[in-house]
């Protein structure tokens, strides 16, 4: 069992709660009196090994929620616990430990590259954590192999494709050995090929390395295969269930300004015209189900 900080609430449940938010609100200050409520009384917990997709329109509070998860920002009300440790702490070493457990990958890979050689870029995180040299070398090798970029280790990151750059950014975070990875729209700037590459890496991290994944996205197709989808609307948590349950609720999804996968939209259009389809996710399933109805 991994532990963080000195004030650890050790948890012996089989499924460990890695992250817990209790009645969390966050207000961005505008001036001394006014603010914008970005997050409004949100409670949720995330278990070890889950693959959670977080979605919602721009301004719904997704990114604010993400930044609260490793203490980049602190709640104005309520508490965030990571491995039982509160992100509001007087002890700086606690927050560093929390950040080493919860890694973040952001939208633009270009903003996340530091060194001019890929392996140096990956080594930057563990170097800052004071990891011994021998261990850093092992971690760099491991992280690059996990994202499938070992062959490029001596190259410069700047000539890579978007998908490759984002995989390097993921490896750089992995080298710090996090248990949880938060992807804040990490696929938004990629072309379809790059997006597929990165999604494949994210899924393998979850399945093979048992890393808990919180994936923020507007691409609802990326919910397929997730354990759980959380939908935010105007700072509130309005949905928390399996993706297929969300895909059935066309009007609700539209109200949350989500764009369901095109298949779900077509299924909805057919329903309006009197052809009521069962639950389908793939083209093959769609064709099979529809053939039975024709």
């Amino acid at each position, binding site marked *: 069992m991994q532990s963080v900080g000195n004030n650890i609430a050790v948890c012996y449940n089989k499924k460990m709660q890695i992250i817990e938010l209790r009645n969390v609100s966050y207000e961005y200050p505008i001036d001394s009196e006014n603010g914008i409520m970005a997050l409004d009384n949100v409670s949720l917990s995330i278990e070890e090994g889950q693959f959670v997709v977080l979605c919602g*329109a*721009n301004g719904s509070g997704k990114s604010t929620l993400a930044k609260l998860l490793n203490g980049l920002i602190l709640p104005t009300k309520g508490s965030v616990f990571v491995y039982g440790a509160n992100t509001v702490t007087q002890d700086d070493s606690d927050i560093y430990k929390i950040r080493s457990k919860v890694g973040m990958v952001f939208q633009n890979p270009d903003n996340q590259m530091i060194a001019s050689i890929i392996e140096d870029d990956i080594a930057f995180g563990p170097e800052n954590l004071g990891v011994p040299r021998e261990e850093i070398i092992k971690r760099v090798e491991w992280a690059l192999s996990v994202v499938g970029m070992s062959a490029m280790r001596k190259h410069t990151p700047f000539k890579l494709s978007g998908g490759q750059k984002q995989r390097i950014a993921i490896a750089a975070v992995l080298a710090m050995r996090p248990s949880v990875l938060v992807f804040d729209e990490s696929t938004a700037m990629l072309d379809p090929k790059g997006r597929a590459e990165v999604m494949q890496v994210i899924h393998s991290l979850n399945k093979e390395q048992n890393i808990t994944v919180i994936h923020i996205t507007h691409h609802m197709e990326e919910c397929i295969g997730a354990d759980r989808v959380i939908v935010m609307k105007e700072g509130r948590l309005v949905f928390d269930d399996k993706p297929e349950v969300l895909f059935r609720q066309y009007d609700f999804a539209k109200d949350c300004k989500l764009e369901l996968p*095109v298949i779900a939209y077509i299924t909805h259009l057919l329903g309006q015209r009197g052809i009521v389809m069962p639950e389908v996710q793939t083209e093959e399933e769609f064709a099979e189900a529809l053939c039975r109805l024709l």
Partner: protein
Amino acid sequence: MPIVVKNLSFTYMEKSPYEKKALDDVSIQIDEGEFLAVIGHTGSGKSTFIQHLNGLIKLKNGNIKVFDIDLNAKKPDLRRLRCEVGMVFQYPEYQLFDETVAKDVGFGPRNMKLSTEEVDRRVRKAIELVGLDYDEVAERSPFELSGGQKRRVAIAGVIAMEPKVLVLDEPIAGLDPRGKNEIMKLIIRLKNTISPTIIMVSHDMDNVARYATRVAVFENAKLLYSLPPDELFANSGELSRIGLDVPVAVKLANALRAKGVDIKSAITPESLVEEILRVKGGNNA
């Protein structure tokens, strides 16, 4: 008047170890009133192609004529070319720079040396065309606006020059679904008002199917196809071969046809649903 491109080739860093052929013998004519979608992988030559259209890349091999401006001439009128062909880059909001929205949008027309009254008229018109309230935003800093609003301001800055042709490089990348729909509707509105010809680079095949009148497919520096979307997507096997996606409606129509359902070509969700209902009606009759 059309844009005519003949035998256009271009190589980056020629005669160096990094030499890369970006365009290889590309010929195409783009007529007034077209909505041309340009698709292809990253690195296939799309961006190099569109950057030739307003002289951002100097023509080396081949011929380009934009309306009556001949880019092969000794000194082509690049200033006029750039007024006729407006270019909206990827993530255009990163290019906002001025103190207020009105000043930022007015930068292009001011450089065209128009009168102050004309600049003001165009700035107001452009801001309103992109769906923002002039009185509300004109004097605000563009950096205070939301992401979607910033992108609109950036687009307004280009259309304030009233280009006949609007070139957009992945205008909906990185937006949320509502933002995407709004920008697509905005592009159609611009096509119907200021810029009758639209050239749009996109990876979003569902939007390409819905809006484009013709699709140009780039692969390995070559222009492979330039076809209306229904004809192009009818040959979805070929697109898959070069690793490009097709609209979901096309995939579903293919899957149905494979099961013996007599579905004719459908490239949008709406047309697919109509086709399904037609087949069902026939079966029940």
